[in-house]
Every structure is written in structure tokens, then in C-alpha cells.
């Protein structure tokens, strides 16, 4: 465009003309309000295309998808929108577009402001605090459903509940969800289902415009939800708008179906859980039984039960040994004593045989001595006597008599050696050689004195 002034007089090429127009248009940023007449928002497109009109004109618009998403507005035909942008040209078709920078719903501004203010107020009151959020009952037996009895939402919810958890009883409060009466009706419905025993309340409706959803931004409803004795699940199909009800509810689901899914477990999951519990219990009990069996088997395998003989083995052996020793002890001692006695017997017998022998020998000896002595006892005396006898014999004065002499004795026994010795008349005994004569003295003759020669010898 650098050469534009000098080339003004010369006819421009189409492209140059378009570039010139584009430059002129794109410098003009305007804010306008219009009603949406056509909308083409498709996934995959880089931009959202729509048309705004008023009674006199219509204007094609495009908005880059990222910007459109950021606006938070969902375009619908008939919507009154306020937008800021600039005109631009699509050169290949020679079409003018309004390139929208920002978009908001015109006429809703006040409502949004009100809602945001209420949200802020309730937040400050703590109604949205995460710690207030209650957990849903794992297996609700009674589910309160507060929604419109008409339309897809109630059936979506019932179908989902039937599919996932037919065991639950549903108490339904079919109430209007749009219009001025809706908040009060919703509150009445909630009370009705809670009174009917609901353990969880599903507060749902299908999608709608921001204005349609206004009952769910009601402050009284919000307080009712926050004070509801049972958990509340919202399923208000109006992404990306978030209602006050969503904010104070215990669980917020994006759709009625999602709310139903959040409220009940899946029967299949529960069956699986039950099956797992069944298997687990059986396994545990079997394991315990096996453990006990092993314990019992271990005891059975212990030596005392395997071979109970060991219980008494030591005692039995000790007893056998003692028996054996006892067996031997006493006979041995009797035998020993008997042997000693036998030796005493032998010694006594031996001694018995010789007991008197020494004495006998002694007496025999003495006997022999006595015998010999006896034989000689008289001998000495006898010899003595014999000697004396022979000597006496030799000396016998009577030998004289043998030669014829006689020996006369008077009656006194005296030798008559004198006539005086034998007076006449006395008797004398005259010893002759071979005897004695008795003689009487008849006479006496006195001899002359004769000498007796032997007297002098």
C-alpha cells in the first residue's frame, strides 16, 4: 500500500482495491448490538460463524474459536448479543465479515450481574465451602427426583437409575422448572421427596437459556439446598453456565444422566463387589482351614503320635536293666554266701577229722610210757630186794645150825646162852637145822668157865 497516492489515478487491480478496502475497514473497531439470525458452530471449525441482524440490516460475523469459548456464550438464533470487533474482508470471495473480539448476551447483563453478586454473597456465607459438601450414600434406597415431569430429563434420569440400580425406590416430585413459580415449586418438591424418605435428592433439568435457568439461581432455593438434610445432586444441563444451585449442591453433575449416575452405584459393580467378597471370604475360610489342617497334621506327625513307644522307651529300658541287675544281684550273693559256707564246711570237716588227733597222740605216748614204766616199776625194787635177800641169806646165823648146832630159846624168846636163861622147868625151843624142837628143861649143868675165843677176835 506504499504506493497508493500516486497510483490513485490509475485503475487499481481487484486485489489492490480489496486491499485498500480491507485496510480502511480494519481500522474501524465498533461495538454493536444485534439479534442472532443464523449460527454455524461446528467442532473442527476454526471459528464460529453467525449472522446478526436488526430490522434494517444483517451482518455476517466470525469469531475465532478460542475467543468464542472464552466468551462463555452459546449462540442461539434469536439471541440478542452485544459484540465488539472490526470489519474485515475475505478477499477471495469479496465478502465482508465482522471479526468479533468479544461477545456477550445483550439484555442479560443485569441478570448475570445479579447472579454473580448473589453467588458472591452466598460464598461469603460459606454455603459453597468444600467442607460443607456431603458424601452421597453408597447405596441409596430411596432417591428423590425433583424435576419437570415432562421432557427428556426425567426419563434420562429414570432410565439411568433403572439401568444402574433398579433396587432403589424413586420418589418423584414433578414440578415446573421455568418461570416465576419454579423456585417455590422446586423447594416444595425437595421437601416432598425428603419427607418421602429420600436419602439423596436429584435436582435436574434439561438445557435452556440463561434466563430459563434463572430459577436455579434463586437465593431461597440455594438456602433450601444448603439446608437440605440429605445430600443434593444437581444435574442442570446448561454448560458452561453454572447456577447457584450447582454451587451450593453437594455434588454437581453436568447433565441429568450424569447426576443419576453419580447418585447410585452400578449394579454390575455391586455384583462384582459381592462376587469379590464371596471369593475373598471363601479363600480366607479355606486358608484358615488349611492352616488348621496343617497344624493338626503337624501334631499328628510328631514323634509321640507317630511312635508312641518313645513315651515309655526310656522307662522300659531302665526297667529291663534294673530287672536284669536285680535278677543277678541276689542269686550272686546267695552263691557267694554258699561258697563261703562250703569253705567253712570243708574246714570244719578237716578240723573234725584231726580235732582229737593231737590229744590222742599225746595220750598214746603217755600210755606207752605208762606201759613201759609199769613193766619196770617193780623191777628196781625187786632187784634191790633180791640183792638184800641174797646177802641176808649168806649171813644167816642159822647156817651154824646146819652143821649140828642148835639154838635154844627160852620162853621169852631169848637165846639161852646160860643155864640161867632156862631155869629147870622152863620150856625152851631148840632150833635145829630143819626145825625147832620144843623141850623142857629138866636139868641144868653148870660148865666150867670156858674161854670164848671169837669174842676176842
Amino acid at each position, binding site marked *: 500500500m506504499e504506493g497508493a497516492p500516486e497510483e490513485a489515478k490509475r485503475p487499481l487491480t481487484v486485489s489492490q482495491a480489496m486491499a485498500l478496502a480491507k485496510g480502511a475497514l480494519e481500522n474501524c473497531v465498533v461495538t454493536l448490538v444485534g439479534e442472532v439470525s443464523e449460527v454455524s458452530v461446528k467442532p473442527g471449525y476454526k471459528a464460529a460463524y453467525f449472522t446478526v441482524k436488526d430490522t434494517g440490516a444483517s451482518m455476517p460475523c466470525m469469531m475465532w474459536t478460542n475467543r468464542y469459548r472464552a466468551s462463555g456464550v452459546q449462540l442461539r438464533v434469536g439471541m440478542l448479543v452485544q459484540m465488539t470487533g472490526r470489519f474485515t474482508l475475505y478477499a477471495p470471495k469479496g465478502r465482508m465479515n465482522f471479526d468479533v473480539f468479544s461477545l456477550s448476551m445483550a439484555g442479560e447483563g443485569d441478570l448475570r450481574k445479579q447472579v454473580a453478586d448473589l453467588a458472591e454473597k452466598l460464598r461469603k456465607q460459606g454455603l459453597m465451602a468444600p467442607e460443607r459438601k456431603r458424601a452421597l450414600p453408597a447405596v441409596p434406597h430411596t432417591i428423590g427426583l425433583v424435576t419437570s415431569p415432562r421432557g427428556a430429563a426425567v426419563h434420562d434420569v429414570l432410565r439411568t437409575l433403572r439401568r444402574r440400580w433398579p433396587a432403589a*425406590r424413586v*420418589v418423584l*416430585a414433578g414440578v415446573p422448572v421455568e418461570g416465576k413459580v419454579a423456585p417455590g415449586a422446586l423447594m416444595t418438591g425437595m421437601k416432598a421427596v425428603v419427607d418421602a424418605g429420600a436419602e439423596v435428592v436429584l435436582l435436574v433439568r434439561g438445557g435452556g437459556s440463561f434466563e430459563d435457568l434463572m430459577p436455579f439461581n434463586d437465593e431461597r432455593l440455594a438456602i433450601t439446598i444448603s439446608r437440605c438434610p440429605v445430600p443434593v445432586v444437581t444435574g442442570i444441563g446448561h454448560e458452561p453456565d453454572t447456577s447457584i444451585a450447582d454451587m451450593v449442591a453437594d455434588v454437581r453433575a453436568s447433565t441429568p444422566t450424569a447426576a443419576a449416575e453419580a447418585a447410585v452405584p452400578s449394579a454390575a459393580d455391586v455384583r462384582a463387589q459381592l462376587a469379590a467378597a464371596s471369593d475373598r471370604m471363601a479363600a480366607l475360610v479355606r486358608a484358615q482351614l488349611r492352616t488348621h489342617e496343617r497344624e493338626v497334621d503337624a501334631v499328628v506327625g510328631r514323634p509321640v503320635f507317630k511312635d508312641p513307644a518313645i513315651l515309655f522307651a526310656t522307662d522300659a529300658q531302665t526297667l529291663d536293666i534294673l530287672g536284669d541287675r536285680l535278677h543277678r544281684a541276689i542269686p550272686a550273693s546267695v552263691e557267694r554266701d554258699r561258697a563261703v559256707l562250703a569253705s567253712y564246711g570243708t574246714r570244719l570237716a578237716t578240723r573234725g577229722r584231726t580235732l582229737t588227733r593231737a590229744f590222742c597222740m599225746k595220750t598214746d605216748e603217755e600210755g606207752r610210757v605208762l606201759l613201759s614204766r609199769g613193766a619196770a616199776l617193780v623191777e628196781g625194787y625187786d632187784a634191790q630186794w633180791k640183792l638184800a635177800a641174797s646177802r641176808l641169806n649168806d649171813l644167816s646165823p642159822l647156817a651154824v645150825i646146819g652143821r649140828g648146832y642148835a639154838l635154844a630159846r627160852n620162853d621169852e624168846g631169848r637165846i639161852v646162852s646160860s643155864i640161867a636163861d632156862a631155869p629147870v622147868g622152863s620150856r625152851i625151843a631148840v632150833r635145829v637145822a630143819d626145825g625147832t624142837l620144843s623141850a623142857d628143861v629138866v636139868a641144868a649143868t653148870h660148865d666150867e668157865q670156858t674161854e670164848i675165843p671169837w669174842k676176842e677176835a
Partner: protein
Amino acid sequence: MEDTQKEATPIEELTFRQAMAELDGIVAKLESNTMELEDSLAAYERGVALLRALRGRLDDAQQKVDVLMGELEQDASDEEIDTTLHKA
């Protein structure tokens, strides 16, 4: 047997959730591996009864809808086999 003072509630008097919780408790107790054989057996028996009862309830379940307010509009696409509607 340690828990005899606490008589077991008849299963029919238990809610599904209570029965489920008791079953969970039984499994946990069995897992603790500290029970007497007799208690384990009793627990197992109770557990089996609970299991069967729970399964039975699941099998027999039929959705009941009590309409407390308003009039439910029938949806032609739903098969109404499992749903009993009660008008309040």
C-alpha cells in the same frame, strides 16, 4: 466365640447398605486372621447368607417410582418392564 452378646440381626431387617456393610465387616474380620475357627465359620455362614440375600435383592429388584407431585409423562421409547409407577 466372642460376639455372641451381639445377636445377628435377621437379614431381612437389614437394608441393602447395612447388609453390605456387615459383609464388608465380615471380610475384614476374616482378613484379620485372628478369629477362632468357630467364629470364622459362623462369620462365613453369615457372610454367605448376606451374599445370597443381597444377590437375591439385586436379582429381584424392580424399579419403583412414586410420583409425589405432578404427572409423569410416559416416554414411548422406554420399556416399562422394570418400572412400577405409583401415583401419590
